[in-house]
């Protein structure tokens, strides 16, 4: 057995467990703002992910226990579930999760080998294939007359007999959808923002959710589970790109704060773009990776065919990772003559 003979306490399982724990404040706010439907989505995605993971491990001849208990499948499931509309039908959740675990993760070689972020691959497949179902968002409870209980939410998700009127009463366009639709109708941003769905920064409720993800992300950073480069560069990319466009024409482009506080941004910046497997690893590479993802998010939101661009932006940057890493290799000890000592 080779040196060293001692290990730090941290394990992959612990890293993943912290990521899950850091998502909990976001999930709590989600329930408070939009109702308990998300709990059904999360549970369904978790079960699907674990079953798919176990089946794939068996098929690939890997031992189930060390890989099932590393919690990485559950992280993927939760990230996907939190990106999906809260009242998405069950088969949508199952399809997305299966695609994420089976194709994006295991067919690429399993833990540590996937080029693309599995949750985002699942999301991309769904939004490309089922754009209509991907809009079944529950509106904030504070804006709607009706609300769904946990059982009713489950019923909606599993395709039970829920009156269409009730469903229409609880679903609502997200702020990004509303902005997009409004702009397509030749309204100015200011005219769009008078709609009740919009709050101080983003959408009502949505901004709280974004705040909760931000908080969880800062906890991960404080624990050194994630580094600061990716989230900061990601947020900076969004802020600068949106700010530039907004400054250029405030009537046609949303304000930078609005873009930052769409919940997918905070989730993406702190939990998805920071995925180490599919992201850049060098310090400068992380900055480029994050900034590029932020920039692409705004570009896709503004000129792309989908209301949100976080998933596609991250996937596109995933493609660039090998190149980024290769060209951002840091200087090693003693490589250049640069010295930290003041000139004598």
């Amino acid at each position: 057995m080779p040196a060293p003979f001692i290990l730090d306490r941290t394990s992959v399982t612990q890293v993943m467990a912290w990521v899950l724990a850091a998502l909990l404040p976001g999930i709590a706010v989600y329930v408070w703002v939009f109702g308990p439907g998300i709990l059904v989505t999360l549970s369904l995605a978790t079960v699907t992910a674990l079953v798919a993971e176990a089946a794939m491990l068996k098929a690939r001849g890997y031992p189930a226990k060390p890989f099932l208990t590393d919690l990485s499948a559950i992280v993927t499931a939760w990230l996907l579930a939190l990106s999906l509309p809260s009242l998405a039908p069950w088969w949508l959740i199952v399809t997305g999760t299966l695609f994420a675990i089976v194709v994006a993760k295991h067919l690429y070689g399993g833990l540590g080998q996937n080029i693309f972020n599995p949750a985002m691959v699942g999301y991309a497949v769904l939004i490309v294939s089922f754009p209509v179902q991907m809009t079944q968002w529950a509106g904030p409870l504070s804006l709607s007359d009706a609300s769904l209980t946990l059982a009713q939410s489950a019923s909606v998700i599993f395709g039970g007999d829920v009156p269409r009127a009730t469903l229409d009463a609880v679903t609502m366009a997200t702020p990004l959808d509303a902005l997009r639709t409004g702009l397509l109708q030749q309204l100015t941003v200011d005219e769009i923002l008078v709609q009740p769905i919009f709050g101080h920064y983003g959408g009502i409720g949505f901004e709280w959710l974004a705040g909760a993800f931000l908080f969880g992300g800062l906890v991960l950073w404080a624990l050194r589970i994630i580094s600061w480069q990716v989230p900061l560069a990601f947020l900076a990319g969004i802020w600068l790109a949106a700010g530039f466009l907004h400054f250029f024409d405030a009537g046609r482009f949303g304000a930078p704060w609005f873009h930052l506080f769409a919940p997918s941004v905070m989730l993406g910046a702190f939990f998805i773009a920071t995925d180490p497997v599919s992201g850049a690893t060098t310090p400068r590479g992380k900055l480029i990776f994050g900034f590029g993802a932020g920039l692409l998010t705004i570009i896709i939101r503004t000129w792309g065919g989908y209301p949100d661009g976080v998933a596609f932006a991250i996937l596109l940057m995933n493609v660039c990772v090998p190149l980024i890493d290769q060209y951002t290799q840091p200087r090693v000890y003693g490589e250049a003559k640069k010295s930290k000592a003041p000139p004598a």
Partner: protein
Amino acid sequence: MSRELFTFKGGVHPPEHKSESNTRPVHAAPLPRKLVIPLRQHIGNPAKPVVEVGERVLKGQLIGTADGYISAAVHASSSGIVRAIGPAVVPHASGLPDECITIETDGSDEWIAHAPLDYRAMEPSDLRMRLRDLGLAGLGGAVFPSAVKLDPGAHHHCPTLILNGGECEPWITCDDVLMRLHADDILQGVAVMRHLLGSTEILVGIEDNKPEAIAAIQAAAQQMDFAVEVVAVPAIYPAGGAKQMVETLTGKQVPSGKLSTDIGIQVFNVGTAYALARAVHHGEPLISRLVTVTGHVLRPQNFEVLIGTPMQVLIDLAGDRDGTTGVLMGGPMMGMPMPDLEVPVVKATNCILVQSKELFPPLPRALPCIRCARCADVCPAELQPQELFRFAQADDFGRAQEYHLFDCIECGCCSYVCPSHIPLVDFYRYAKSEIWAREKEKRAADLARERHEFRLFRLEREKKEKADKLAAKAQAKRAELAAAPKAEGAAESEADAKKALIAAALARAQAKKAEVTPRNVDHLPPDKQHEIEEIEARRAKIREMARQPLETEEKKS
């Protein structure tokens, strides 16, 4: 103590476990019945035995002489009879035997005559040779022959001398204890180093978790006739690595692939300074050292141990316990497992760390790398260990070298923090040894190819020479036959025509050559011109001489 400190990148904070062994007094280990002294205890050529089996040797007697510049002598650690000279198991992870001299001690511990050296009066090179013959080698772990390091080389002096009292590996306390007990002697050793290296700045770097050692060295420094700056450096592994100590104290990085002396800094371990003082002021060769025996033993402590003492003797002294799962030489971060406890203590043995399941739980199963780059965060060589791992795993050694594999100091920080528990250092060692092996193979192959090509060339030449000889013979015969009866005119005119042609061609060539002669030698003063002509004449003569054999050969054909 107001020195501005610099931080090196990376590093980890493993549990220190120092108080187990540094709170007990130091004991001299009793004389063992048998001493096994390896001839290869240092970097460089192994020592050559100079005693015979059956010979009686005295304590401190030279038994293996240094072989070459980078080498060091070995000595009998006690008096007794040489019982064997040959392979024995040595402290090496491979478990392979190496040449050793085994001495059966006689218990009298009788010293050979020895006297202090008047180092100030000695010629530096003589002093260094003397130190080499006294077996001095770095006691910090690398065991590099000290005499070589004490040669300031072409620079004639080494401005900064750093004494390394870092001792950052967990569990080990022999340097700490040595500094507390023998601060004066250590600084006496430094005085000799300073004398040889011509250093003007003397720094002693000690991790700040050793306040007693710092105080002791500071007190001793007051008594010295030169300035010694004692610096407490932050305790972080591997602060005691030579390169890291250099950066912490001076802010300078040792250039990749170079030595610290290239930037005017030399680094010695405190133990080496102590051994040097014993050598110079008492004439004693390096035959003993302090060894920490700790971990899963009843009484962890430091012992003054004769080189060649079997490790089992020390473990018994410290109190063997049930449940021992293994024994390491060195610390838990860079130490190596011992194949056998009959292996002797050598100059490199700073610690014997006894393992148990509780203290050193078996390492968990390795998972795939998730590219979290924690390893890169802690790497003091500022490498990208996750990429090196990828290349090593794929046997892509070219890329591994591009990513500075050989700057890895194998400190183990990356493996320590890896959440996937991958034995990363092992992969780097594998890659390094593969590259070395391949280079060796390539060199061997190149040599073989050159030899083969030369052989082909030689065969070809011999064939040609033979053919030429035969042709010459044949022509001579033909000429002989032709000369006798024929009229000479026709043949001569034919030969004349040929000669005229050759002469014309030569003249053309000469003219062309004259044209391309460099023009920057025109219009020179006559003396210069004369000089040049002389040189030209000499060159022409040489050319002529060189051409002659060729022409004779041509004539033959």
